[in-house]
């Protein structure tokens, strides 16, 4: 099993247009999807949902407001799953509820570093 990082992006659709009921349903869908991966023992780290508080730092002390100034799609969260292959990781990612609301999931392999400096 290898780790794959999932990067979730919204299509720029602001979440606050959702009704409380829609919001609740979306949360339930997320939990069911994550729970389903965890039930297969393929969740490595449930990761983080990212808030809109933030900014981007650049050289020469330049700070751009908000985390989404220059990218069309907002990064909304990360999670790490376990899979044998990229295909299997894709299969697991397919159920992600963000896909139903125009968002995307980027599936990325992880470079395993050899941390054993003693050798």
């Amino acid at each position: 099993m290898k780790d794959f990082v999932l990067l979730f992006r919204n299509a720029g659709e602001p979440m606050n247009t959702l009704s409380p009921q829609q919001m609740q349903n979306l949360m339930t869908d997320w939990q069911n999807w994550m729970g389903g991966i965890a039930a297969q023992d393929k969740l490595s780290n449930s990761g983080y949902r990212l808030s809109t508080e933030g900014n981007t730092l650049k050289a020469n002390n330049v700070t751009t407001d908000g985390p989404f100034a220059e990218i069309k799609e907002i990064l909304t969260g990360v999670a790490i799953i376990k899979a044998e292959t990229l295909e299997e990781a894709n299969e697991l990612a397919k159920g992600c509820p963000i896909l139903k609301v125009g968002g995307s999931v980027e599936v990325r392999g992880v470079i395993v570093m050899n941390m054993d400096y003693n050798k």
Partner: protein
Amino acid sequence: MQKEKELIPQLYRAEFRKLVSVLSRSFGLEHIELAEDIVSEAFLTAAETWGIKGVPNNPVAWLYTVAKNSAKDQLKRHNLFESKITTHLQQDHTPAYETEIDLSTQNIRDSQLQMMFAICHPAIPPEAQIGLSLRILCGFSIDEIADAFLTNKENINKRLFRARQKLKEAHIAIEVPPVTEINKRIEAVLTTVYLLFNEGYYSQSHNTILRRDLCLEAMRLNYLLLENTATDTPAVNALMALMCFHSSRFDSRLDEHGEVVLYDDQDSSLWNQELIAKGNYYLNKAAQGNEVTTYHFEAAIAYWHTTKAAEKWEHILQTYNKLLQLRYSPIAALNRTYALYKVYGKAIAITEAEKLNLESSHLYHCLLGNLYTGEDNQKALEHFSTAISLTKSSVDKKAIRKQMIKIGQL
């Protein structure tokens, strides 16, 4: 004559553990067998003496005195040996033992709590912890332990012997760990309490009285932790809530033959409301602070099982989702899929079940057998047959056959 025959086993269950804990604390854990012998001897003396002379006015005090005197004799003999003989061998000698045996309520309680931490030490394998807990902390006889584990006395004696060896080899002190270590050490203690409870709740033994005793003992041990401010943590409260909720359904989940009644077939009027109320009390206490453990989620799941709320399966499913994200276990994965069926129907649950990769578990095939019943009876029967071939338990086989017969009648 009749009176002491009933009295002695009752006293044994209540007092054996207290005396052994106090004596072991004075002798040191390496002499735990000596403590057990002295206490057993005191009970034997009681059985002989009371049969002839009648039961004394205060039987507990009588037992304490007999055990105390023989412990003091032992210590005197030992100290004599240490001072007369060992000093010739060793230059630096300090007497190893105090001779005072303190049988105050406070010391009995403290000794038991300390003994719990000593037995539930990470160096001791979990199986040995359970056996020792039943013997030393719960005062179960070898026969009762053998019955609970569906094995014979010889096996239990061997298991306990090996467990005591481990205790000696690991040089574990009888003490409550310092505050800085409690959170880490308490995990092993809670695991043992939890396993002890499960042993009673899910045991294959048909002895329902014994099974109930196991559950009650687990709750009693957990209560010792709650009584001490240093160990009265949210996790301990959550485990207590979990056990209260589960045991509230004890009467409804076993039929008159000691066989398990499935949740959907249980008579909810038999659920014990007093225990449910206690569960709520401890669950509220568990919610204080920021710590969320698997016990919190399991307690919440057990809570929803005791309600008749329409949306309960929705809550159960969501809590299983969270529990699995915190820690995976095959049982939680299977139960989550059952909750998924209750909320979204069989088709979705079957798809998810078949992804679980638990083909070697009979419970997995039982679940699929259940889900396929009424959808594809042929497949249901195939899964039930596989389940039968995978389990060794005759109780399980019988229960599965019952479900197969039901399909034939559909």
